[in-house]
């Protein structure tokens, strides 16, 4: 299982008929079991790229090679749950083969045990995200895609959910692609950080992190972060590296 991406360009036509370049040359590769993190400013085309990689958007110049028929687990930025199905049904519909022990384990880790029979409309955003995560992990994905899974959550909740995601990823060694605009999340979760420029997106740097996730100390994390900030600030097109 290996992912190779070479997107030469991707353009959108706006309603007014103008052409907008979203991606202007992005190439990278991910190995089996590796967690890649795409970091870039908001609106730089990250979500567009994920849609291309998931096979949802065939309209681009370039090449994406991933094994055909690979099971994909996708956590969208908005949770995209079925509002008319309960939490448990939402997960089971995506993963009809998942058995009860596996589901209870997932619900346990993601703190969803009490919410199995709730409808998504009754959940907070943080809980809805967790359901989306449970759904993505329940399919036992070969390729896991996480689009800003920690956005719009308060700091304490985000850090707890980040630990939960790390625990789930570590237990599986699944090829993962995470998108975020938060450098801290990127360094704590990723094996490889791919920095993207503002729109139209190009790759600014492709930085592997050699220390395993669990062994990274605060000092090392801070060092990698400052390295990343240096790279972002050093690029000709300035951006805010929040």
């Amino acid at each position, binding site marked *: 299982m290996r992912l190779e991406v070479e997107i030469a360009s991707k353009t959108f036509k706006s309603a007014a008929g103008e052409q907008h370049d979203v991606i202007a040359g992005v190439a990278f590769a991910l190995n089996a079991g590796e967690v890649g993190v795409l970091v870039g400013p908001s609106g730089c085309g990250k979500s567009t790229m994920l*849609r291309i990689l*998931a*096979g*949802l958007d065939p309209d681009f110049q370039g090449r994406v090679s991933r094994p055909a028929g690979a*099971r*994909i*687990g*996708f956590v*969208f930025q*908005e949770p*995209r749950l*079925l*509002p*008319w*199905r309960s939490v448990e*049904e939402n997960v089971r*519909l*995506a*993963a*009809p083969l998942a058995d009860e022990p596996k589901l209870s384990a997932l619900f346990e880790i993601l703190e969803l045990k009490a919410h199995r029979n709730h*409808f998504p*409309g*009754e959940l907070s955003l943080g809980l809805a995200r967790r359901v989306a995560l449970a*759904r993505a992990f329940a*399919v036992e994905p070969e390729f896991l895609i996480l689009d800003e899974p920690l956005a719009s959550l308060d700091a304490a909740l985000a850090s707890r959910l980040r630990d939960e995601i790390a625990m789930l990823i570590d237990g599986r060694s699944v090829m993962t692609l995470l998108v975020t605009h938060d450098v801290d999340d990127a360094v704590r979760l990723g094996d490889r950080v791919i920095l993207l420029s503002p729109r139209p997106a190009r790759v600014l740097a492709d930085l592997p992190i050699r220390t395993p996730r669990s062994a990274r100390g605060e000092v090392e994390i801070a060092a990698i972060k400052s390295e990343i900030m240096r790279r972002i600030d050093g690029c000709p097109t300035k951006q805010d590296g929040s």
Partner: protein
Amino acid sequence: MARLLSFAMFVAIWWIASLFAGDAKLPPPPTVLTAMIAEARSGDLFFHLGATLARVTLAFTLAMALGSAIGYLMGRVRLADRLGDPWLILLLNLPALVVIVLAYIWAGLTEVAAIAAIAINKLPTAVVTLREGARALDAALDEMATVFALPRWSRFRHVILPQLSPYIAAAARSGLSLVWKIVLVAELLGRPNGVGFEIGVAFQLFDIPLLLAYSLSFAAVVLLIETLLVQPFEARASRWRPRAA
């Protein structure tokens, strides 16, 4: 309780109005009730009500099934929308009477002609409503279903159908009332039984108690079906929505 009160008010207003209008124009409730009981005793009431109900059921089912399928197709496929739209506008604006008369001329005074005519009258409204529903389908959920490779049937049942169900309910609701109205006209013009036929007879004989007896029995059946079938279905379909306070 409120419903009972509302019904009692209806009877009271009727009774008072009948005092002013006189027996010949508006007979009081007991007279109509007597006519109703007489018709029920002879079995005529149930026979005609049954005939009408059977026509309504058949025409309604036919129109809903065909209309939903066509509407869904037109909402999802652009070409189908382009091809179907002129027909739809024509059918929407064609008077019911024209359809019924033409159906009887072309297919004879038959049951098939009656049911087809009623169904054709209801069909375009179902198409229009379901087309709106299909156009409003959430693309984000579609993508989710694609990524997670939901099987066709599960996708239809759990992703698409729940989104369409308010539109189906709306089409059923408005369609049912349309069918109730049209079925009597179709029966009046070309069937030897049914509530419409009986009302035609009562009209020719100027038998107002009989006319009201059939009209009100018919209204009672409509109300019963509304409370026992349509409303529970709507409540079930929307049970996931957070309840209004």
